[in-house]
């Protein structure tokens, strides 16, 4: 898997990752994109040089996301703002984060009243924001849905998704590889907010990958992506399971709390695989003397990708690296595993938790 990571990262850079998924979505059979850009400085640093980056008609983009109560979510908005900053023709209106769906709905309503050219929306709850997103689409404003999917295909022009199921598969596969054919290995899972479909997808992928190698999830607890909830969930888990071989923690932000709980317990008979890919976790992986051996990337640059797509849609442009002349409906990003060997490639795009 690791030898595929560099080209995959390039694809991240040009926001066309998982061309396989695209191929399905667009009926395109090619899965070898032209390597464009070539920046080694991470996903949001350099725009790929092409006519799409030439300044076009100025577009106003409305952006709304949940409250930045954890590092990944904070980075989503920060990366989106940084991306918009790079283009002279983007005027970004950020309605800052809220976990109150009623308030987020009113923010989108404000964008509609304002007649912005496009809306990038990371909903707190995809289903709850579907009606207002549909309303925006009906008003002729293209909506780019990021990360948490709407219920209706009429609610978004395009959707940028992390591969949650793939994250679970990647984590499960890595744990299978590490454990070898150890019988009766105790594998634990610390999930994120259980009510979100993304958490359910991650858990499903994890379970499927483990079943594939004859293992299963022995203990499962759920936290809420925050440090404090991670500490609580991990403490409970360690109490519940006297011996553990491997832990997958869905999210590196709550992982700070998870590692604190593990540190307090003084246990070290297992290894930990993280999720999302925060800077401090990557640094721990790099140091090599931590219980965290790997983390699975969940790109925090999705919002930034959403901004770029929104700009292209509003300016009626296409993704240059595809033959297709319209922006695809769905872009699913890849979930690679970061280990000590390849950590240096991912550090630049990591987010601070």
């Amino acid at each position, binding site marked *: 898997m690791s030898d595929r990571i560099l080209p995959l990262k390039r694809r991240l850079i040009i926001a066309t990752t998982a061309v396989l998924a695209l191929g399905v979505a667009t009926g395109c059979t090619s899965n070898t994109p032209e390597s464009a850009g070539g920046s080694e400085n991470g996903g949001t640093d350099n725009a790929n040089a092409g006519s799409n980056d030439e300044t076009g008609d100025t577009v106003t983009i409305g952006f709304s996301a949940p409250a930045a109560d954890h590092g990944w979510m904070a980075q989503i908005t920060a990366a989106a703002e940084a991306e918009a900053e790079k283009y002279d023709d983007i005027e970004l209106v950020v309605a800052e984060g809220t976990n109150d*769906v009623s308030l987020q709905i*009113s923010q989108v*309503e*404000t964008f509609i*009243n*304002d007649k912005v050219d496009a809306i990038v929306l990371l909903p707190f709850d995809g289903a*709850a924001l579907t*009606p207002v997103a549909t309303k925006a689409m009906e008003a002729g404003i293209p909506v780019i849905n990021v990360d948490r999917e709407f219920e209706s295909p009429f609610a978004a022009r395009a959707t940028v998704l992390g591969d949650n199921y793939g994250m679970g598969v990647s984590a499960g596969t890595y744990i299978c590889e590490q454990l070898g054919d150890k019988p009766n290995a105790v594998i634990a899972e610390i999930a994120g907010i259980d009510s979100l479909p993304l958490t*359910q997808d991650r858990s499903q992928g994890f379970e499927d990958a483990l079943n594939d190698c004859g293992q299963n999830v022995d203990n499962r607890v759920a936290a809420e992506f925050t440090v404090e909830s991670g500490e609580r969930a991990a403490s409970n888990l360690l109490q519940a399971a006297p011996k553990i071989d491997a832990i997958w923690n869905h999210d590196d932000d709550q992982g700070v709390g998870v590692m604190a709980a593990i540190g307090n317990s003084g246990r070290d008979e297992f290894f930990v695989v993280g999720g999302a890919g925060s800077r401090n976790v990557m640094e721990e992986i790099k140091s090599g003397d931590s219980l965290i051996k790997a983390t699975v990337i969940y790109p925090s640059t999705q919002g930034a990708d959403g901004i770029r797509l929104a700009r292209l849609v509003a300016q009626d442009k296409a993704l240059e690296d595809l033959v297709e002349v319209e922006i695809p409906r769905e872009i699913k990003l890849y979930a690679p595993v970061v280990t000590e060997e390849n950590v240096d490639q991912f550090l630049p795009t990591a987010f601070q938790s």
Partner: protein
Amino acid sequence: MQAQVPQATVQDGGTATGVGSEKRTSPLRTLTHSSAGRNLGLVLALILLCVVGFATAGDRFGSVDNLMTILRLASVIGVVSIGMTFVITGGGIDLSVGAIVALSSVWATTLATQTVAADTHWIVMVSTAVLVGTGCGVVNGFLVAYGRVVPFIATLAMLASARGLAEIIANRRTQIITVRPFVEFFGGSLFGIPALVIIFALVAVAGWVLLNRTTFGRRTFAVGGNPEAARLAGVKVHRHTAMLYALVGFCCGIAAIMLMARTTTGSSTHGMLYELDAIAAVVIGGTLLSGGRGTIGGTVLGVLIFTTLSNVFTLNNLSISAQSVAKGLIIVVAVLMQQRFANRGSVP
């Protein structure tokens, strides 16, 4: 029914300083003590916010569409706040309103409820939400009134358990409403005014009448101002307290219906931190946290101030963090002003 509260100072947006008599001296003091006078400051604050809105966002702020956006946002929390006004006026507090909204929304959108509603009428979902909300309120009321549990603790327990129960019922998933007539009815509008806003207006008017024009309202002031005096005057304090909590639960049920229509979902994450927003709106509206004085008009203005603030910030692309600071400042200033009025009032 039974003995009336033996004094007549309870009036429009009223004050009831226990059962004592109150002297009125200068017309100015009369003005600052009348509800119109007390609300004057709030109206000024709202006008000031609107001026800022117009100055910074122009027609984007002034458009009818934007007005409706503000009102729709105000509606859900507004209905909760009106219920909260009664409880606080009656000397209590309810921290469980957000959790009750979540539980009502979840219970009213379960597969079973929706199936029955689809076969019969969406009124099933409405009554489920209202019954669940009122039921939670009755439990709160019994704990506080007859169980002698401090309101803060009793409703804190309800906050935790109602949201937990909502998570259990919904299995922590978002339940999507498939009963289209429900969404169409509550998501629609009448004469260009969204149904949610009409409901808010109806609840506000009903709340005003109930608080200011009925025996129930007068007893609420009496119980909140001085429960012992109210008891001696023949008010069944326990029963009345329980009814106040049932009333706020009822309002939460209505708010849940509104939120369900707004989001087309029921979810255990709905109504997060509504208790704080509602208490803040009630307090800046001029209702005394210690009870005995309360005003529906002030609460409505309080809600509108917060939602307009949020709208102006969104229109101007300002951060929600700055908005939270502004919100905090407004609360402090409002309470300081309240104290000034209260002190001035107590000087003979």
